[in-house]
């Protein structure tokens, strides 16, 4: 972490960049938040630790409009989102300076709570084990048990774009990201209905999943229009639950990098990644494998076509 701060201070001091985008400590040990830093002094509040899951690429849209370059720290998965946004002309690559940061998986306080670790005062990350100081004494657990779902299905630790890379990464991938999707496909339609009904009914329409998503960046979102009945309020019916979620997932189809931010921020713990991954899995099967954000030139499957594509027939969503 100190190395990152020193480097950022140096780049600010020599005028290469005008501001730094990173994470700042908040009053809880488990809640660093994205922040811009404009001076060496402000950088003393900078943190980079096991809780820095937040993907910073979306903030670069805003800073692309400002004077001077912005230094951003990106984890391997964040670089996919960054590329995707460059591809969509939302970020000006020339206005950025990217430092790739090493990642050994990010953890979340929700997982710690699920493991029964509450009243957290401080977290110490010592390699493979986490030691947590709580109101009720010291607890510990294996690091990977507290990790975000997305880190278990990490796309790899290579930075897809970076001006320089600082820090070491460790492999965390230990599950197939499509396993749960396949499992759901094998259920009956009625069982899937019940599953999603139970999950989506928890939604409070806080819109956090939309707001955090790097590729959900339309200036005017359909969910903000007055013509739409379910603007900025809790879903009144089960129809709205599904409409919001189907449309949200569909609007990012072919652009979603599977960065996992939507599922991470959902206060209700709804597994939104299942919808995104279903779309990704389908497009891979229908049109060949495609990873959004892998580079800045390939064309998304939904903005392309061939003369002999598969027909939109029933039966691809799962068993009857």
């Amino acid at each position: 972490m100190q190395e990152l701060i020193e480097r950022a201070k140096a780049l600010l001091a020599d005028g290469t960049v005008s501001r730094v985008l990173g994470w700042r400590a908040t009053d809880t040990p488990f809640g660093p938040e994205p922040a811009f830093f404009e001076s060496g002094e402000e950088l003393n509040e900078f943190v980079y630790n096991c809780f820095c899951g937040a993907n910073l690429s979306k903030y670069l849209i805003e800073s692309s409009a400002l004077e001077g370059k912005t230094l951003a720290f990106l984890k391997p998965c964040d670089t996919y989102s960054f590329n995707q946004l460059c591809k969509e002309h939302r970020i000006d690559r020339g206005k950025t300076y990217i430092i790739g940061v090493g990642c050994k998986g990010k953890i979340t306080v929700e997982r710690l709570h699920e493991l029964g670790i509450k009243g957290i005062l401080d977290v110490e990350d010592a390699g493979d084990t986490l030691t947590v100081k709580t109101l009720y004494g010291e607890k510990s657990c294996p690091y990977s048990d507290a990790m975000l779902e997305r880190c278990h299905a990490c796309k790899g630790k290579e930075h897809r774009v970076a001006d320089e890379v600082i820090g070491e990464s460790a492999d965390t991938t230990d599950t197939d990201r499509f396993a749960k999707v396949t499992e759901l496909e094998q259920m009956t339609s009625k069982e899937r209905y019940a599953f999603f009904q139970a999950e989506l009914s928890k939604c409070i329409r806080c819109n956090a999943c939309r707001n955090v998503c790097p590729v959900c960046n339309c200036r005017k979102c359909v969910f903000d229009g007055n013509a739409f009945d379910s603007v900025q309020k809790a879903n009144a019916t089960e129809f709205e639950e599904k409409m919001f979620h189907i449309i949200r997932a569909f609007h990012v189809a072919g652009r979603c990098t599977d960065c996992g931010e939507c599922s991470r921020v959902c206060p209700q713990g709804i597994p939104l990644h299942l919808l995104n991954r279903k779309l990704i899995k389908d497009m891979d099967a229908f049109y060949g494998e495609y990873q959004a954000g892998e580079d800045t030139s390939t064309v998304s499957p939904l903005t392309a076509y061939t003369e002999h594509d598969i027909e939109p027939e029933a039966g691809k969503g799962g068993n009857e």
Partner: protein
Amino acid sequence: MSIDDRDFRPVIAAFCCNWCSYAGADLAGSSRMKYPAEVKIIRVPCSCRVNPMFILRTFEKGADGVILCGCHPGDCHYSTGNYYTRRRMASLISLMEFVGLERGRVRVEWVSAAEGAKFAETMNEFVEHIRALGKNTRLEDLRCKN
């Protein structure tokens, strides 16, 4: 089959592109071919105009089945519109089934201006299928029933 089921008259929305399928529907009509009155046709300039939101909104407003008809791939009036429709709808239909919608409640069919018979046949078959599925309860907005 209970009495209720026998009396069930589904509401079917058919989005038809102006250049092929709408003309196909016209031909079916002028050739006196029968297709069920449950089918409500909505004319669109191109099948590609149909935003996924249209389909969901149609269900919200009480439809039991939605069918989207356009020119055969390769025959689009705007050259490539229906190629995009095809990709978009393949993903959308799959996603809707994935969240639990019954198979076949949303359908895409290519009908040319010369295929009046195919239009009538498709509609007859689709209405039968929706009648067998019954009312749409998995995706409906309760407030829209008066």
